[in-house]
């Protein structure tokens, strides 16, 4: 397949992603959202694996239930049954959106995602490239920091979420800031802004 054809397929995939995410945001029907979710789960299991899927979905389950609880507790203008329905719809939307992006990124190499956005202005493309390249790096660093803190007796499963996340979050932010500073220096020293 030529580069041009590959790029066209990638653009079509991106367009599909945009259309489906827009639809997911606007659709309010529980059954449509549920069908989309089931369809996506089947696709991901076929293309990737059950492990990849569970890794992606397990942190979202807690968010799903949090949204449901928030709807039940705070959306007092509706009756209980409608609140539960709204909670399920909002939760399903989050799950669907996340899996749509996962489906796209799982079937498209990172290096090609950058190429899809070649029509954007230079500065925006650069921002996008840096973001895309650093997403896995940030996750990897968070994992490394967690291991380092665990080896010093830090317990990740504390009840207090702030106390639980801070020992990882603070060094992670520090590292991200240092990394951003060095990237900015590299950009300058390689002539960025020479136009």
């Amino acid at each position, binding site marked *: 397949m030529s580069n041009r054809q590959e790029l066209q397929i990638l653009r079509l995939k991106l367009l599909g992603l945009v259309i489906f995410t827009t639809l997911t945001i606007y659709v309010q029907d529980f059954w449509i959202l549920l069908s989309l979710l089931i369809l996506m789960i089947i696709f991901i299991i076929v293309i990737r694996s059950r492990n990849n899927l569970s890794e992606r979905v397990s942190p979202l389950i807690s968010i799903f239930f949090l949204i449901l609880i928030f709807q039940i507790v705070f959306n007092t203008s509706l009756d209980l049954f409608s609140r539960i329905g709204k909670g399920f719809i909002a939760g399903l939307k989050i799950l669907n959106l996340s899996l749509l992006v996962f489906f796209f990124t799982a079937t498209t190499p*990172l*290096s090609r*995602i*950058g190429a899809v956005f070649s029509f954007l202005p230079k500065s925006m493309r650069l921002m996008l*490239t*840096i973001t*895309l*390249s*650093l997403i*896995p*790096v940030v996750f990897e660093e968070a994992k490394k920091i967690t291991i380092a803190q665990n080896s010093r007796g830090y317990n990740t499963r504390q009840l207090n979420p702030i106390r639980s996340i801070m020992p990882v979050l603070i060094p992670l932010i520090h590292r991200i800031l*240092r*990394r951003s500073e*060095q*990237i*900015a*220096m*590299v950009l*300058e*020293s*390689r*002539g*960025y*802004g*020479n136009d």
Partner: protein
Amino acid sequence: MHPGSKMKKGIRLKNVSFGYQKEHHVLENISYEIKPGIFLGITGINGSGKSTFTYLLNGLIPHFFKGFLEGEVQVDGVSTKSQNTAYFAHQVGMVFQNPDFSLFNLTVEEEILFGMKNLKLGNTEERTQEALKEVKLPGYENRDPQTLSFGEKQKVCLASALVLDTPYIVLDEPTAMLDYKNSLELYAILHKLNNCGKTIIVVEHDTDFLWQFTKEVIILDQGKIFLSGDNREILSYKNKLQNLGIKVPDRNRKI
């Protein structure tokens, strides 16, 4: 006129003092002339101002790090105050200490192309291949830089500086996180580049490498030049080096 076409006059530092804060000088009254074609080593203990020294050489100070700069740095006769860092990117290639923090593109090829696109250089494909061959990474064009080993990442950073074909190349502790084999490979590349006429300025803690590869050495202590001159002469002051906390080179060590 293209900056590269000017006569090389070297990098001249005249009474340079710099501090990130007003009262605290990181570098104090530095005067030195880096001659074209030299292999210069800079060493000193942590916090002696080595990295800050390198930031002076391509205009990162005063354009990126504003701080408080006194005196003047001239690259081939052009003051770093008068032009921005992008201008000096034509003359000074920079390799930073931590390659992990320097790579931000999705492929090795894009990483190397980045500087060339900015400086609007031609023959990009040919230059990319040449640079990768130079650092002994041919065939790595489509690799994700983040998945490479540390040594390979550092070599990609060097290749990204090499493609710009700058007369000066500055490296800030390039071997700090490398094993001996990779460090040696890197110095062999630098040695070859120096033989081809490039001016190499390297910040290094391992004085064995400085002894073996450099021609001149600067030893910084608390932001001041403590010793400078011929590498063999300077690195022979055993007591002075030991008092500063700098490793005395093993002259018998075969590198």
